[in-house]
């Protein structure tokens, strides 16, 4: 395997606030990329994966959140990792490829040989060093991480067709209406600097003649300005699709877990996936319960060092507890995320739920979900500062911030 002598650079696309209301109510006060999965901010998982990249010069986060949303995080993680991490803000969305092109001068500052690009809302093992080895062998301008999924679920993503022998990307279709392939684009890429020429080519071709683009009527209604904006370039439809089959793009398969984190329900599922991955990559992060006054831990559990758990509580599997949380005597926690400063009082039970910052769950209360991560109301989500009074049962509900529940509720959104 040839080692790369030159520098490498990584880019994580983090998106922005106007793009989705799907992460409400958790997104009211916190940028989605900073929401914790398995005890670490969502964006931290791809960032930590970048440690596998040799000669990594810089990590960039590109998005259109306010700068101040990321200032503290970025300086903290830079210090911890000893690799510079910078947040670059687009004043207006340029599309996933347009954003890369817009900041190309910065990205090329260290003359990188390879540019790693990842979507922040992808949950996977980020096999970057193996992917790099394959990329260097292929000698194309880009390598995509791909995975085989079920035929039904494939249509939610970008479907790809690859040559089984050479690994070349032959065909790309984004969210096709009819079946194209069971292989999907995972949203993790390695490019060479030639990608910028490809993006520029698309943008200038746009200026010369109109492109026939399949556009949903929703897009047509809402994005009338964007569709004519020459510098709005999407990686998938505008770059990968035309370049497929031209011996420039290649694929690398992963058989590990892969999910997209679009909704709070999925964040609960992905938190469990990352907790399971800690067994291999960071076993010290998982709670062991070996001290005499420890609570009982079952399966994968993450507990922030400042959280306090009574020794009669039973926690897990698949539980993540954030800083300053207090778990009282006799509490049972299953498949849940407990955010900062939460108090769970005696003998309460929380299962398949997300309990928002500073919330309080009363004694013998039960906060539960059916555990369907993709349904609209399949888990319970308590927003910030929600109080569930003693003995109240909350099932499959979404509760907005600052509410007090003194009666049992189920299958409801509570404003």
């Amino acid at each position: 395997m040839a080692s790369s002598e030159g520098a490498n650079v990584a880019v994580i696309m983090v998106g922005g606030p106007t793009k989705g209301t799907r992460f409400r109510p958790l997104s009211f006060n916190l940028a989605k990329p900073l929401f914790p999965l398995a005890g670490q901010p969502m964006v931290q998982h791809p960032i930590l994966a970048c440690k596998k990249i040799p000669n990594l010069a810089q990590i960039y986060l590109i998005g259109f959140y306010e700068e101040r949303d990321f200032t503290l995080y970025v300086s903290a993680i830079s210090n911890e990792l000893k690799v510079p991490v910078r947040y670059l803000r687009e004043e207006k969305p340029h599309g996933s490829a347009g954003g890369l092109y817009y900041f190309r001068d910065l990205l090329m500052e260290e003359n990188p040989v390879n540019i790693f690009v990842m979507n922040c809302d992808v949950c996977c093992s980020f096999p970057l060093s193996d992917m790099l080895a394959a990329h260097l062998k292929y000698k194309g301008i880009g390598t995509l991480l791909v995975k085989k999924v079920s035929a039904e679920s494939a249509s939610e993503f970008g479907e790809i067709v690859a040559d089984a022998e050479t690994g070349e990307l032959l065909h790309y279709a984004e969210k096709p209406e009819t079946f194209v392939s069971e292989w999907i684009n995972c949203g993790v890429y390695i490019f060479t600097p030639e990608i910028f020429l490809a993006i520029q080519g698309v943008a200038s071709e746009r200026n010369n003649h109109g492109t026939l683009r399949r556009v949903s009527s929703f897009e047509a209604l809402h994005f009338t300005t964007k569709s004519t904006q020459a510098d709005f370039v999407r990686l998938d439809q505008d770059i990968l699709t035309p370049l497929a089959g031209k011996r420039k793009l290649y694929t690398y398969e992963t058989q590990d877990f892969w999910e997209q984190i679009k909704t709070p329900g999925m964040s609960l599922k992905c938190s469990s996936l990352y907790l399971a991955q800690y067994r291999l990559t960071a076993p010290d992060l998982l709670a062991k319960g070996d001290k005499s006054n420890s609570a009982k831990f079952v399966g994968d559990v993450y507990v922030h060092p400042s959280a306090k758990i009574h020794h009669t509580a039973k926690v897990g599997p698949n539980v993540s507890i954030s800083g300053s949380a207090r778990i009282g005597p006799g509490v049972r926690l299953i498949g849940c995320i407990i955010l900062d400063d939460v108090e769970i009082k005696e003998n309460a039970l929380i299962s398949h739920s997300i309990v928002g910052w500073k919330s309080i769950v009363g004694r013998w209360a039960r906060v539960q979900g059916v555990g369907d991560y993709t349904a609209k109301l399949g888990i319970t989500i308590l927003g910030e500062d929600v109080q569930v009074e003693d003995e109240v049962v909350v099932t499959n509900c979404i509760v907005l911030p600052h509410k007090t529940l003194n009666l049992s509720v189920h299958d409801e959104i509570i404003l």
Partner: protein
Amino acid sequence: MKALILVGGFGTRLRPLTLSLPKPLVDFANKPMILHQIEALKTIGVTEVVLAINYQPDVMLSCLQEFEASLGIKIVCSREYEPMGTAGPLALARDTLIDGSGDPFFVLNSDVISQYPLKQMMEFHKTHGGEASILVTKVDEPSKYGVVVMDELSGRVHRFVEKPQVFVGNKINAGMYLLNPEVLDRIEMRPTSIEKEVFPKIAQENKLFAMVMPGFWMDIGQPKDYLTGLKLYLESLRKTHPEKLMDGPNVLGNVLVDRSAQIGDRCLIGPDVCIGPDCIIETGVRLSRCTIMRGVKVKRHACILGSIIGWHSTVGQWARVENMTVFGEDVHLSDEMYSNGGVVLPHKQINTSILSPKILM
């Protein structure tokens, strides 16, 4: 004279409107809710108003400064850091409310819209000479509320009964009080309920009197009651200031329209409609029993009944909106779509019809 307005917390019952503005600043009849009360207090000579809040977004402060300047009345915030109930805030604001003059002070509930018969309350209070006066209003279904059992002639209050199972009376607490400074001596600095702890004691000593509310009264803390309150308010406006209402061939019943709003031809507006500043109502629109907040655009041929459309939203051509639909700020309903009781959070685009009442996050 001084007054205290109980503003309380996050206004969650009035979501999604209160996701954009704190409840006191949500517009009612084209005026921030709290301004209705502050103006009424100013009119009878109150010089200083304390707002008891336990959630203080900075938005409130800058608006309050504007009100202070334009009305010439002092407005102070008293912030509870833990919920103090309905009486605790009074203890918290003690130093402002007691100014040594011995004058009684008003306590109003910020969710209540009414005719504010404050002058009559003052006369009533002087006449009976008791320690506290409360305003009560007659309702059809008293068992939903706390009933005030009183002597019909003198107004002396015997007792309070919370949600009575049998009929004990049909007057409920209207959330407006006039209290002598001594009342504050009865309130400890802890979460306290004025109805459950303070008033019953004063009633026992035969010093609490109730005056029956003349005129309309409504607790507008939730969307359904907000619209009912608007109807009552506009009826009252018809009697007191009919020139403020809109008239014309396109108007039915009581309709209030801000001067800067534009209304196209062949519309039919009313009854009980309020249209805010900078709204654009295009040709052929039907509006009935609804509130259209500032900056909303209602496109041609649309029909909006019994709903609230939040600031800067859009209702598309031929769209039909009805049955207690509430749009938060910046919600856009596509052409030809139907919303039957949709409750939509801010910053959303709706491209499919909402066939039965539901919340869109």
